[in-house]
């Protein structure tokens, strides 16, 4: 037991928020602290392939605001968040932009596009 890696995860599938203790010895995954099956499934998914939506902002010219909110269209692997953020940083685009418009295709090779969260009208030349 002592050699196993134990990870603590907070279950986010319902407001109860069980604290899950997950031990992973490569062969099988053991979950403790879950009060239902959903928690078990969540813990296994979180250990095998945790995914997230990443939202941030990029610089935009000629618009009402200097920042445009953007996000990944689909979930991306959690370990790629840093890569996505590094790719976003320093990107500048020009208004007008439409909501849902693709800003960066297949960002950081995640398979997901980076899209604009809102319209941004052109207000300056």
């Amino acid at each position: 037991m002592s050699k196993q890696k134990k990870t603590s995860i907070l279950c986010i599938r319902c407001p109860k928020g069980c604290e899950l203790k997950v031990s992973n010895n490569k062969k099988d995954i053991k979950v403790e602290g879950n009060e239902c099956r959903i928690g078990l499934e969540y813990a296994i998914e979180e250990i095998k392939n945790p995914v997230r939506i990443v939202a941030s902002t990029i610089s935009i010219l000629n618009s009402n605001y200097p920042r445009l909110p953007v996000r990944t269209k689909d979930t991306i692997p959690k370990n790629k968040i840093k890569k996505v953020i590094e790719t976003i940083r320093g990107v500048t685009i020009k208004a007008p932009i439409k909501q849902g418009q693709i800003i960066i295709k297949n960002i950081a090779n995640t398979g997901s596009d980076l899209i604009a969260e809102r319209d941004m009208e052109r207000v300056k030349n």
Partner: protein
Amino acid sequence: MKDVVVIGGGPSGVACAVTLFDKGFDVGIIEINEELGGLLDQCIHDGFGTKLFNEGLSGPEFASRFIEKLDKSTVEIMLNSFVKSVNPSDKTKEITCITPQGVKKVQTKSIVYAIGCRERNEYEILIGGSRPTGVLTAGAVQRLVNLYGILPGKNVIIVGGGDVGMIVARHLFLEGINNIFMVYPEEFFTGLPRNIQQCILDFDIKFQPQTIVKNIIGSEHIEAVELVKVDENWNPINGTEKTVKCDSLILSVGLIPYSDKLEEIGAKIDSYTNGPVVNEYFETTVNGVFAIGNLVQIFDYVDDAVETAFIAADGVEQFLKNKTHKKDGFINLKPGENVNCLTPQRIDKFLDEISIFFRPGITCKTPKILLINKEGKILKKFSKPFVRPSTLENLKIPLKIIENEDEVSLHVKAKED
């Protein structure tokens, strides 16, 4: 003259205006900012709309679902307009507002207030020391960062373990601030579990429970804070003070319904919610004046706030069509044991089923939730798998079981072991 004017162009206000337009009324909406969307403009993270649209949208995406409908309608939209005063007389109500075209007077038969909430600030919680620059509320930081790209500093201390504080911590981290430290007086974070995981644990953001800021240090700009540990009653423990350097302090210490404007026109304010006293249609104690969204009480999900807009739209319709087939009298609904606040506070017997929202005062599994009359008789038992103060709960009460009472109260009791 308008049938109804909505004051406030946030998600609840816009949803209400659209719904009233669809019902065939002549509607106006007044917004103080240059665009509609309210708080959601700055909430760029995902997770909005899971109840209403069954998908996780960002704030601007959620807002645009309703704004697009409003843009296609003939609702009169007044942007950059500030409501100076309101005359809520029974027949014709008059709103005086300051617009880019000058002072305007708008006549209307009814009004829906949707002006949301405000953040508590350093003057409302006990923080000692000086008042230098660099002390900001979390909402202000969110706006500065997400719309203007202005960061508050490089060494940030966040006070408060609720949702807003956690979300701001993540944004700051993703914008390149590595030195973030959160403190809060409770034993554990008070926000939603998903935010604890996805905002704090995912990025290893440092935090210290049972700690508050005792003093702010700095003459012109903030230089440091003096932290102190607290016991379970939030009393500082002498000798545990520690000074930590920082260049900004972000306060995420709660939201309060912005009910001052309603108080001005004579609406009764509830001391539990800090919002107006409303009936099941979200009508205030002022005839024909309704209140919705975070102005009524603080909602965890925008979906729930928008739900109040839909219910109030039915109420406005009822009011405008002068239908009065309600039963005589009204019922006071009061928060009882372990209920921090609830709405509606008053039931006017309009609807067969009343949707109530309440905030539990305790954390416990399978609590007994009881509706009790003045004589102590249990009228109905409800069950929930789990309650905690950070999650606003919703119940549907059939009018039938309470219609002969004049006062009922809601209680949450921990299950006996």
